[in-house]
């Protein structure tokens, strides 16, 4: 072995780990894991049962059925990228650094696009669904109630658009520097691969 490496290696090996209470850490992690298991069970059960109840009660009203379908689709569209990108980062323990960085960049870019594209669809679809549901229940209502309904829906639409704008800005400020740093690391790794081929 090279003498520099040997000297550094000797110095290096003298450094020992600082104390980490591993028993306490594993107990804490076990508890978190149990809570997560419960969440994984109860959240879908709650979601499916509430949707089932709503659909069952409104089956005979086409407008309401469309309204619920639109609102649920709006929420699912905004959540879809989170599930899609999460699945790509599961293999932290098996992926090489290069592959992991590539997937992480893709995941972060997916998060960057989240408010841009998916939230825009949600901004339109959710108020539309709510509008259909609301106006179908106001067939014989007075003009004031209709106007109030329009006012609420337009306000909701504008509020969602504003939240989308804020979200885009926040995502860009937070994620763009990280993506750029990770891309630099990737370029360094690839430079090594391409330079000597």
């Amino acid at each position, binding site marked *: 072995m090279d003498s520099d490496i040997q000297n550094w*290696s000797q110095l290096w090996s003298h450094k*020992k780990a600082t104390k980490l209470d591993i028993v306490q*850490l594993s107990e804490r992690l076990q508890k978190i894991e149990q809570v997560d298991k419960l969440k994984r069970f109860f959240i879908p059960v709650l979601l499916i049962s509430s949707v089932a109840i709503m659909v069952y009660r409104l089956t005979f009203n086409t407008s309401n059925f469309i309204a619920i379908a639109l609102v649920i689709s709006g929420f699912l569209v905004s959540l879809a990228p989170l599930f899609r990108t999460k699945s790509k980062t599961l293999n932290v*323990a098996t*992926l090489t*650094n290069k592959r992991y960085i590539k997937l992480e960049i893709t995941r972060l870019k997916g998060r960057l696009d989240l408010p841009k594209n998916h939230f825009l669809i949600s901004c339109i679809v959710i108020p539309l669904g709510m509008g259909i549901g609301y106006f179908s229940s106001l067939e014989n209502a007075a003009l004031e109630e209709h106007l109030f309904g329009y006012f609420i829906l337009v306000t909701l639409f504008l509020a969602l658009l504003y939240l989308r704008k804020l979200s885009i800005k926040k995502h860009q400020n937070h994620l763009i520097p990280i993506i750029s740093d*990770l891309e630099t690391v990737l370029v360094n790794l690839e430079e*090594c691969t391409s330079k000597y081929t």
Partner: protein
Amino acid sequence: MSTKAHRFKSIYEDSKDKIFRLCLAFSGNDMEADDLFQEVYIKVWTHLDSFKNESQINTWIYKTATNTALLSIKKRNRTNEHLQQWKHTHFDSEDPMDSYATMDHKMGLLFLAISRLKEDHRIIISLVLENHSYQEISEIVGIPVTHVGVKINRIKKELKKKLKG
């Protein structure tokens, strides 16, 4: 204690020193190294159920640690200012070797110099100093075995330059 907790503890005992050294070399200061160290073992716990092949434990834990370290880039952005200040105090003295006369200080200087390398270089040199083979380094980092040696030579030159100040 559950079977998983026993297994976790055993992996921790076997790997703690080398993983801590990697964390310290990557971050350059004890405070961030401690955070990263804990983060690595949280990831180890999370992925422990999916790990089957005991013979691959070394590569497995290093992939977990190095990938976690690379992702700590997110945190480094936030603490960069603090780190720059810390480096200024500890590293940018007129003659660093004079102030690092004892072994502990030389060791500190080595870790600090490594932390000033590019991210992938920090990982590779850490693996070299832990006596990993070129094959293992290639499997962890994701570069061809044939290029590992060339890369190490470049890192060595760079590190020597940094240590000379």
